[in-house]
């Protein structure tokens, strides 16, 4: 049976993180399009930061579910979440840092 998982503090934080991601990407895009010269590296840094934040959010979502399932002592689902995190870490280790 699926229980309704309550809205955790981390989930509320993730919503704020999504808004922050959008703002970071929008700022970076605006700087790239409308401001040139010294602002170019800043714009590119904001864009890569925003993209990194975007990719991190699903990972943090999985961590949130793992923590909730551990609190509920549902170890099967917690183990599934941990395995997903390990697989993603493996992908980064093999592809980005070979």
């Amino acid at each position, binding site marked *: 049976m699926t229980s309704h998982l309550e809205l955790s503090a981390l*989930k509320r934080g993730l919503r704020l993180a999504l808004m922050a991601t*959008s703002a970071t990407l929008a700022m970076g895009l605006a700087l790239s399009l409308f401001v040139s010269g010294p602002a170019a590296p800043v714009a590119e840094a904001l864009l890569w930061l925003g*993209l990194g934040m975007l990719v991190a959010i699903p990972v943090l979502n999985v961590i949130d579910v793992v923590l909730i399932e551990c609190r509920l002592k549902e170890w099967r689902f917690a183990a599934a979440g941990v395995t997903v995190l390990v697989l993603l870490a493996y992908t980064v280790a093999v592809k980005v840092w070979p």
Partner: protein
Amino acid sequence: MIVLFTFLAGIGAGSLGAMLGLGGGIFLVPVLNIALDMPLPQAMAISLVAVIATSNFVSLASAGQKSANIRLAMLLQLVSAIGAIGGTYMLDYMSMRTREQVFGGTTIVVAAVILSRLNQRNVLHGHVDDVGFLGGWFQDHDTGDLVAYRLKRVPAAVGVAAGAGVISTLAGIGGGVLVVPALNSWCGVPMRVAAATSAVILGVTAIPGVIDNFADGHLTSPMLAAGGVLGVLVGSRAGFWIGAKVKVRSLKILLAVILIVVASQYLFFK
């Protein structure tokens, strides 16, 4: 100008994604590749980033959280992540044309399954205490009632999720185009629950493909990626609102038509 077009394409992809539980990549890749003449690997890389954006928005929205079966999502995203990682290794041995043909053929089959089961409803009528392993309840928008459903054919759901992971990496999409119809047509999951659950899965499924594309140097323009992501986030809001007001049968027909159009593109016009 190309950033503006990417933004507009993202709006369209995000709207469809939020309405149908897709990441929108199935719409975004052809638009970027064909309409904007972007190299296919770059279009796929941007699409996968946009898929993550759609997933983040839908899975964190309150309506998505109420509809999604989180434990089913945890199980399926485990196998879809394995499939996606396997797909990154398969890329080394597969031509781009082969990937397009595999995706087009699969999409045609899925569209046929959806159209053959338009009137199927996966809700259990009457009072239900036990919904079984990974079953659940949700608010049916069509009737307004709290209805129950049971998950059937779990191995089918697991197999499709793994295949969706592979397709995600090979075709630059989230894989929801396979997961949503399978959950709804084969596994007894109501359409809205299938769409919301798929949206939760897509983000994790797309990450191995994004990492692989980044490592291979295909994610070269963060500006275009940002344009696509921001468009998807805007479109997702509109798609969510529209999707809540449209009947289930209409959603299924829309999904099937989109699948046929996209499949034709990849099979005959590339």
